[in-house]
């Protein structure tokens, strides 16, 4: 698997996701500095978490408009897998690779905690090693994770099964209290039409290390690696 992680000024979870991918695939992914717009041949491009450009103006706005993201969009159009986590999800919505927008958490606070996510599909490139309906527990760490899309977009997402993760209780019920940031329909992660681009707010990469007794994120990386073998 040839994977690369895009690094913007202010990106800060590139190590975390590299560790997770390495655990799953045995191969250390490469890092691409945002100014290097000549990307090598890749199977997977990750836009990691952090505070690209300080999250100033609007999270992901400046990175989303950067030249390297145009190149990422071109690759996405060719079917290269794209994974955007946290700030990466925000960047993907800003580039238009995914619909909607991430707004400030309804509680108006940065929120870092373990949350329950219900797996909505297990037939995608990103979730084949998981089980539909299961609830996984992984950390979130964000201030702007409140997913918004207008009614039409939302209906389209739901009708076409593009919601991959939803904030949920341990028993799988999708409730108001489980919805930690006010996202519409408890949405925590969505796919593009082709199912090749995933954006999600939670950090599965921070739940892949058995010695930390947090391993629920492993399934996602396993799915990606297997689908590319």
């Amino acid at each position, binding site marked *: 698997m040839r994977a690369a992680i895009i690094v913007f000024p202010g990106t800060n979870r590139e190590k975390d996701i590299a560790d997770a991918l390495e655990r799953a695939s045995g191969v250390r992914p490469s890092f691409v500095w945002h100014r290097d717009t000549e990307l090598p041949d890749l199977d997977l491009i990750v836009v990691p978490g952090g505070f690209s450009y300080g999250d100033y103006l609007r999270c992901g706005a*400046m990175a989303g408009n950067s030249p390297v993201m145009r190149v990422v969009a071109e690759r996405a159009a060719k079917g290269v897998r794209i994974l955007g986590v946290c700030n990466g999800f925000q960047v993907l919505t800003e580039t238009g690779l995914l619909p909607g927008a991430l707004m*400030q958490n309804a509680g108006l606070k940065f929120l870092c905690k373990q949350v329950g996510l219900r797996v909505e599909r297990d037939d995608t490139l990103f979730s084949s090693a998981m089980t539909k309906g299961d609830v996984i527990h992984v950390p979130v760490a964000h201030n702007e994770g409140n997913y918004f899309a207008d009614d039409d977009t939302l209906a389209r997402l739901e009708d076409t099964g593009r919601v991959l993760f939803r904030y949920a209780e341990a028993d799988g019920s999708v409730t108001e209290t489980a919805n930690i940031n006010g996202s519409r329909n408890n949405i925590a992660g969505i796919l593009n039409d082709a199912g090749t681009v995933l954006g999600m707010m939670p950090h599965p990469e921070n739940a892949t290390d058995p010695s930390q007794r947090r391993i629920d994120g492993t399934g996602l990386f396993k799915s990606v690696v297997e689908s590319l073998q």
Partner: protein
Amino acid sequence: MKANVTITLKKGVLDPQGKAIEHALGGLGFDGVNEVRQGKLIEIDLEGDDVDAAQAQIEAMCAKLLANPVIEDYAISIIE
């Protein structure tokens, strides 16, 4: 030339920040506040003094970067 861009949340998009201010004002004893909405103000100092050109340029800035059309509206006012 100076211009102000105001960026506000679209009607229908929830504004928890505005709600929180509204609530806090109530708590401080300010009565009669019907609604509060919070937006951004971006002050731009541009070279040149062609108002139309400036307007067009700032339009482009808003479309490209300053506002997110999914959730935000913007308004431009040229000051001087």
